[in-house]
């Protein structure tokens, strides 16, 4: 990864909440056009890192550079205008509004016209498979529907970088299988995607590059198959000494 192709550069970002060092000195470069993933055990600081990148939180130290501009601590709505949009792990629909109206809010970022925004909402709904539920209230959607809505609303802002926070969490295996091609199609359309994901099946099949975060620190990176063999990663997930035991089991088998 050379510097010239990095869309997002994170340089030594840290953030503490009182005595808890949620994110410690994390540096990573998200290359333009790639589909990458951030994984790690629960409480590793993944969502905090997303909040630091998108401007919902300000880092204590370090810099965030997007498209060559220093955006450290810049308000989220300005980052969205610049082309970086995030979704939320816990879905946040505008419950009192229809699916169409929800997505149109995102589309309004680039058009003041209500008609154009509503038309754009329809197109985006098709991309994420919500076309037949456009006139439903967001509060009437299933969990899978809300996840798609979360994605659609972000997509409607025409982002260059999409930060997806666990779009597959809470879905059943069939819903996950339906969602994976949607995410892949978004990346294929030219949007750079950085996703936080717990569903390893999805990470393995989608991501080109993976960073592993544990206790606020980056402990490994590489292709999905590289990091899943990485002893430190195995220990972060399964506990101290597991890597050695697994290796032994492999040798004796």
């Amino acid at each position: 990864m050379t510097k010239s192709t990095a869309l997002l550069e994170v340089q030594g970002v840290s953030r503490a909440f009182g005595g808890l060092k949620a994110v410690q000195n994390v540096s990573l470069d998200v290359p333009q056009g790639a589909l990458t993933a951030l994984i790690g055990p629960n409480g590793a600081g993944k969502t905090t890192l997303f909040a630091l990148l998108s401007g919902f939180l300000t880092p204590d130290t370090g810099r965030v550079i997007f498209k060559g501009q220093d955006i450290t601590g810049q308000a989220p709505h300005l980052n969205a205008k610049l082309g970086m949009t995030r979704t939320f792990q816990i879905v946040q629909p505008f419950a009192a509004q229809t699916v169409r109206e929800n997505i149109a809010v995102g589309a309004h970022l680039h058009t003041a016209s209500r008609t154009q925004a509503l038309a754009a909402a329809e197109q985006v709904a098709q991309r994420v498979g919500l076309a037949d539920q456009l006139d439903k209230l967001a509060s009437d959607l299933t969990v899978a529907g809300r996840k798609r809505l979360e994605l659609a609303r972000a997509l409607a802002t025409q982002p260059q970088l999409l930060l997806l926070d666990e779009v597959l969490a809470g879905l059943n295996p069939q819903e996950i299988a339906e969602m994976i091609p949607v995410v892949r199609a978004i990346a294929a359309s030219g949007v750079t995607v950085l996703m936080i994901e717990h569903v390893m099946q999805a990470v393995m099949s989608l991501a080109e590059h993976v960073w592993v975060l544990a206790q606020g620190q980056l402990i490994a990176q590489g292709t999905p198959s590289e990091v899943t063999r990485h002893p430190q990663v195995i220990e972060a997930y399964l506990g101290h000494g597991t890597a050695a035991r697994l290796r032994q089991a492999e040798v004796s088998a």
Partner: protein
Amino acid sequence: MTKLLKDMVSIGLFVWTVAFIPVLTQSGVTLNFVMMALFACLMAQAWNVLGGFGGQFSFGHALFFGTGAYFQAIAQISWGWNPWVALPAAMLAAALVGAWVGALSFRYGLKGSYFALVTLAFAEVFRIVSLSVPFTGAGVGLMLPLNESWTNMQFGSRAGFVWLILGLVTLALCVTAYLRNSRFGAYLQAVRDNEDAARAIGVNPFYVKTWATVLSGALMGSAGAFYVQVFQYIDPGIGFGSHTSVEALVGAIVGGMGTLWGPVLGALALHVLADLTRNLFGQMPGINMVIYGAVLVVIVMFLPRGIAGLYPHLPKSWRRYD
């Protein structure tokens, strides 16, 4: 038909119908009722802009009412302005107060009950200040000299006032229709429903909420200016008293927040109720507040979406307007 066109057609029908009432009847009682009902509609609609569409529950809309009323009175008495010029200026003054209070509150992230308390506090501060400074006439209040003529916005009959308040209600309806069919309105409702989600997709909540306070304040200010023209008198209690704030918010909540016709229905229903009970209880002062309180409790418990929330439950053949 697009939603905007439907909204405008329904507003047109409403205005057309109401505008004929003063032609059909000369009855002072009827016209007075229509005028006061429209006056209540205007206040409920003003509150609805910020409370219903923006989700920011103000408990101090009297602040804008009093600002508009005092401006309208002072501009004529002290500066010799024509009332037709003073009215838009009074709205502007109330809007500026809205910008100030809104910017101050939202800059520091006040939400929910904290915002409600701050608006209440501002209204009280204005009431107490207007009780003591000389240019508001202090406790005595201000009296507008009687000078009946159209150019002086003092109409010989109630009919003129009915048309004037109908014009202001129409303006409020158009602002509401704008909120239902524009980017600004979509942003405002997005912030109401989920501020963080709105921020993530490019909405600046501070800007949106402050502008909503400005619009809401301007409409409420016009109600204050209208009051002065009709009753030719204003004092701190009338201008900045909390009963005005309560009347505005109860009308909007009872009718249905964040809807086009809810505040109109709510204000009308409350006004009819207050009038009926006035005959029942006589002139017991403050009895309408007791009734408003009771109605509010019942509505919040059983009809959280207000009278307008009943609409989707009507038989399909009745629902021409969606």
